[in-house]
């Protein structure tokens, strides 16, 4: 701190008192301006992108202060609200983020909506650098008739529902029919299928009480994952596929015709695609082992993959409100590999179902009219994380690259954006001689607008309450799904 530095500066030499004093004063002023040269950085969004960006900045700059803003009272974004309840190890990363939040140069401010409670321009006045890491809160739409029928949901909303995301707590998905169709063949589609079909004891984790009760009454026995393209274009990954194949009480429905001859095609493809396809081929074409055969024979639930079907229309039931089925175009593939395109053949097929979950991708939204945004790509235009045409503005995570990838992709990407910020600090592109007040000025703005930020230690109170409630129910936590309840708990 400054006092001890100043005392080091005060030299012992009595002979040079006059000159020493002058030197002391200028050095003390210099040290004061050193303190003023601590970069003030703010990060918008407290998911993995926000936290990994903050972590890297704090580690590689000895003075930088990083404030993380979050619109919900509670932190961690998709780690809390996206990762499936039966994947608790993936959530271990929360421990890393908690360590970052505990750094004395880091502060967390929840319950603050950037773009509403405070604008990005106001943040830019308060901070040397603003990093936008707010992810993708919306989903891609199908753009077909009937998609707004009452029993059609986005997978994003369904995941939010079982994970306790406040805005989805009243979803009340209709689980009263036997067959569900999931449009899309990514990891989110598999998550949704697995949650619909899993034995309840596997699900009984930090899934919300309300959704667990609803799933316990579910009639869903069969889930189809429908993709526009073929087996070589599935977007899910091998760990999740293996989990699905081995899901107790279920059997896979894989049409051998979809996989015959595929073994030859994948001889030279990159390893991840090869191993994934080999697993599908094996499950579809090889005779199952004894244990597996017994499990499949006694299974009461099933799931399958349908390929080369592109949704055309959701068909309404007699009441005109619910769905009764989906009409799909049969496609053929033009080109191969990751860039293959699905082209309609003219043939059409219908699949009877009531519950339809659209899992065709998340989508970012523009935060604030002042920020450049590419609506077609759904990202903030940037170069190496520097927002184009907006000095002092950066972005990391899904809002920078698009809404795909796992934790390591976001981690690398966030470190990369942090690098850009550090370079700009070092090169003087970010002018530190303009002193910035950081949270001090934001606090008064928020106060004047009646907004009360939630601190990290407030979150820890909410966390403790959730864990305590969970203990009573034999779960790792019982999530609080009402933001008002969260705020009351911390007496806001």
């Amino acid at each position: 701190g400054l006092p001890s530095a100043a005392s080091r500066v005060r030299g012992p030499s009595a002979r040079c008192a006059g000159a020493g004093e002058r030197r002391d004063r200028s050095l003390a002023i210099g040290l004061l301006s050193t303190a003023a040269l601590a970069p003030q950085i703010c990060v918008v969004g407290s998911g993995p992108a926000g936290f990994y960006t903050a972590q890297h900045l704090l580690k590689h700059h000895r003075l930088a202060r990083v404030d993380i803003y979050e619109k919900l009272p509670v932190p961690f974004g998709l780690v809390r609200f996206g990762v499936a309840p039966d994947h608790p190890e993936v959530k271990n990363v929360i421990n890393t983020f908690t360590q970052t939040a505990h750094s004395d140069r880091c502060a967390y401010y929840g319950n603050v909506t950037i773009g509403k409670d405070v604008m990005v321009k106001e943040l830019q006045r308060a901070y040397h650098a603003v990093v936008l890491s707010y992810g993708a809160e919306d989903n891609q739409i199908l753009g077909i008739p009937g998609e707004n029928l009452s029993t059609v949901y986005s997978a994003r909303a369904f995941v939010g529902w079982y994970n306790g995301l406040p805005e989805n707590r009243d979803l009340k998905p209709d689980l009263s029919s036997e067959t569900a169709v999931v449009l899309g063949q990514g990891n989110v589609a598999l998550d949704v299928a697995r949650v619909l079909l899993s034995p309840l004891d596997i699900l009984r984790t930090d899934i919300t009480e309300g959704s667990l009760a609803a799933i316990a009454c579910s009639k869903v026995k069969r889930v189809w994952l429908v993709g526009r393209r073929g087996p070589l274009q599935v977007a899910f990954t091998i760990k999740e596929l293996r989990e699905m194949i081995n899901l107790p009480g279920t059997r896979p429905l894989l049409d051998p015709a979809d996989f015959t001859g595929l073994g030859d095609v994948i001889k030279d493809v990159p390893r991840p695609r090869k191993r994934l396809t080999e697993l599908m081929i094996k499950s579809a074409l090889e005779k199952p082992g004894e244990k597996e055969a017994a499990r499949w024979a006694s299974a009461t639930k099933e799931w399958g993959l349908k390929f080369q079907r592109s949704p055309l229309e959701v068909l309404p039931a007699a009441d005109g409100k619910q769905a009764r089925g989906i009409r799909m175009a049969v496609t053929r593939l033009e080109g191969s590999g990751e860039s293959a395109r699905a082209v309609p053949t003219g043939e059409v097929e219908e699949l009877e179902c009531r519950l339809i979950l659209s899992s065709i991708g998340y989508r970012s939204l523009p935060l604030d009219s002042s920020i450049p945004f590419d609506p077609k790509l759904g990202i903030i235009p940037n170069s190496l994380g520097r927002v184009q045409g907006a000095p002092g503005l950066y972005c990391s995570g899904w809002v920078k690259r698009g809404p795909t990838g796992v934790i390591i992709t976001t981690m690398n990407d966030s470190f990369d954006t942090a690098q850009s910020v550090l370079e700009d600090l070092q090169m003087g592109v970010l002018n530190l001689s303009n002193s910035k007040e950081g949270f001090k000025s934001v606090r008064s703005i928020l106060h004047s607008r009646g907004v009360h930020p939630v601190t990290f230690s407030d979150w820890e109170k909410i966390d403790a309450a959730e864990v305590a409630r969970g203990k009573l129910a034999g779960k790792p936590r019982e999530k609080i799904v009402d933001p008002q309840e969260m705020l009351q708990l911390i007496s806001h």
Partner: protein
Amino acid sequence: MHNRLEPVQTAAVKQGVPEPISLPSCCPCSAAALSKGEVCVGAELKALSAAGWYRSASASGNGGRAGTAPVFQWWQEVTGSDCVSPTTPLPASRVNVVFIDRSGHRIPVQGRVGEDVLHLAQRHDIELEGACEASLACSTCHVYVSQELLDKLPVPDEREEDMLDLAPQLQENSRLGCQIILTKELEGAEFTLPKITRNFYVDGHVPKPH
């Protein structure tokens, strides 16, 4: 009766050097344990203090090099305690390996038999992340090993291969650090961290006061 040892405060002391530790002044390790090649931490600490790496709190003057934090940290992590018990021998062997960090710097470190490479990296402040904390649910601890080492290591578990499939810049010699367990055979092994960002890490400098 406990001696208090404290780490020598020299310029070489890295951050994270542990707090002073209570150490029993006698060290009654059983001869049987010692004959198996096991090492008593108490004896080891006494030897280090004799070599000047650590000095007792009452001593004055300059000490030697900074103490070897790994021994204490490892012990603290394993037992969760600051107190070194003389009656619990440790597995003997140290394993010397080298990390090549993301900027290409070679960092020699000392590990212990039975320790995994992620844990070893992290207690030496090497920037290897372990998001899922060694539960085979991510690939953030991805490292490259030499072909020679690859042949020595046990074949990866299918679950490790599944996670490696998601690692950027996957190579033939890729492994997950959390799954590599140190043995004496790995003496001299090198672990290279993939370059995950552009170029070097820029460390924030503090501009000179003016």
